[in-house]
């Protein structure tokens, strides 16, 4: 048996072609991201100034003003959403990974995945019914709740996944020392998986940071600073939406700048994810 050289050439050609195809697809994936960033910076960077970060919108048609209230509003909404999404998601994930029967868990997982697929505007309707209608006005509470609902299934599933990744042997070692199960979970398992859990939380925050639909009739938007969480609150995505569809050139430019800031915020969250999932001190998990 000899190795045929034509065969060899053909094989090399095939390998080269497939390699080229893979590289091409990878470029196709990254290219839009690069174009979006480029376009955002080109269109929006010129409108970034101190006023933009510190000011509030001026009356329609006048030049100037900024989105400071919307930037702070988005941060406030993220904090409120985390108050709802993190405890429920993390504790639910602990239940799925550490307790719970197999049948019940499968049901919870299934429903969490279904909830994950529910359009975000539906969560806005839920928060509208639960908070806005009884209070009779829009509020930051309602917006935070809507975003929190979206975070719950995301945090739940990632928490469960990283807890399951914690090797059984750590649990066994702790139990063999005579520690009760809850202490094993709180003091051994959760700290071991902490980075993964934080990563999951940041990813969920990044996901809801850009949500617009659930805020339309919950947080509603506010052209001034939010004085109280029971009042309507501005949010970057809402402000971008309103400014982008307005007929004023300056507002359109500011919408680009707002989009740039929003992308930068989610980029920072992603950096946080990389930092926490990188692992400096410990090697596994």
């Amino acid at each position, binding site marked *: 048996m000899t190795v045929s050289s034509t065969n060899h050439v053909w094989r090399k050609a095939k390998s080269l072609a497939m390699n080229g195809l893979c590289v091409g697809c990878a470029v196709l994936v990254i290219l839009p991201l690069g174009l979006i960033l480029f376009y955002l910076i080109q269109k929006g960077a010129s409108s970034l100034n101190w006023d933009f970060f510190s000011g509030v919108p001026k009356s329609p048609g006048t030049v100037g003003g900024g989105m400071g209230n919307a930037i702070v509003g988005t941060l406030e909404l993220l904090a409120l959403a985390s108050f709802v999404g993190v405890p429920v998601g993390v504790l639910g994930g602990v239940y799925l990974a550490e307790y719970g029967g197999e049948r019940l868990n499968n049901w919870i997982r299934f429903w969490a995945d279904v909830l994950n697929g529910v359009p975000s505007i539906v969560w806005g309707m839920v928060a509208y019914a639960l908070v806005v209608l009884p209070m009779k006005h829009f509020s930051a509470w309602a917006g935070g709740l809507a975003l929190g609902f979206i975070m719950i299934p995301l945090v739940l599933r990632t928490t469960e996944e990283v807890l399951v990744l914690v*090797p059984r*042997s*750590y649990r*066994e*070692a*702790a*139990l*063999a*020392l*005579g*520690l*009760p199960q809850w*202490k094993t979970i709180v*003091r*051994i398992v959760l*700290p*071991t998986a*902490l980075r993964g859990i934080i990563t999951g939380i940041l990813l969920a925050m990044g996901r809801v940071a850009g949500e617009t639909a659930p805020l339309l009739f919950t947080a509603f938007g506010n052209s001034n600073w939010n004085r109280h969480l029971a009042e309507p609150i501005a949010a970057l995505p809402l402000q971008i939406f309103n400014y982008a569809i307005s007929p004023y050139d300056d507002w359109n430019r500011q919408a680009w700048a707002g989009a740039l800031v929003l992308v930068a915020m989610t980029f920072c969250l992603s950096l946080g994810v990389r930092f926490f999932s990188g692992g400096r*001190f*410990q*090697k*596994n*998990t």
Partner: protein
Amino acid sequence: MNLTMTPEETKAVPGAPAEKSPPAPQRFENKPAPAPATPASRPVAALAVKNLSVFFGKHQVLKNVSINIEARAVTAIIGPSGCGKSTFLRSLNRMHELVATARMEGDIRLFDQDIYGKDVEPVIVRRRVGMVFQKSNPFPTMTIGENVTVGLRLNGVRNRAVLAEQTEKSLRMAALWDEVKDRLNAPAVSLSGGQQQRLCIARALAVQPEVLLMDEPASALDPLATSKIEDLIRELRKDYTIVIVTHNMQQAARASDHTAFFYLGELVEFGPTSQIFTNPKQKRTEDYVTGRFG
């Protein structure tokens, strides 16, 4: 003698055909020659196991095992893979209960106290019967020192002096003190594999158990680290009752006082290590220790 046989156990006739005999632990009184490793004074049973059967679902893993484990001695459990060695070991501190479908029958007494009694919490049993695992598993989020004291700290010991004292004592007993005394605050995962395993032994010793179970503690280690662990086991025998599961026949021969041979969930033979390895009564034991199967 404390180690007298129960009626069930004595049903095994010594002269019966080897293949069909039920578990037949050897009486210590039957020893033809004085066991060199065992002190002549009357041995105390740390763990008295009677008619132990363990099931996982419908599968019976241990069949009617009765054995008395002598206090302050090393008892080795040998046998081919899947013979129930590890299950037996885990039933001694109720770790097998982590498998939801596990079920046990029989009676295990720790210094005459039923560890499966109605009012006995597994947590309490495990504080008295510690365990070291096949793969070293120091907690990765903790330093060396924190790993040693974790059992005490999480059980409510706050006194720094007590913790420091126990750290040194446990690490000395685990023959690790000299290697780590200057870097107790370094992460535990920075240690080598053999050191990590000795750290796990120190961690288990720190809660001052009465019995130490070891599930193939050296099987993942190189020969040098293995011999250190074996030296350590011989040393610990002075203060602790040790039950060690091992695949390594030489290790059982070197480090243990008594050896039990398990096969297909049954206790085939139990006796002084010297006898099991040089003059076994059962043909299956002889075949196994001479490497003809297993």
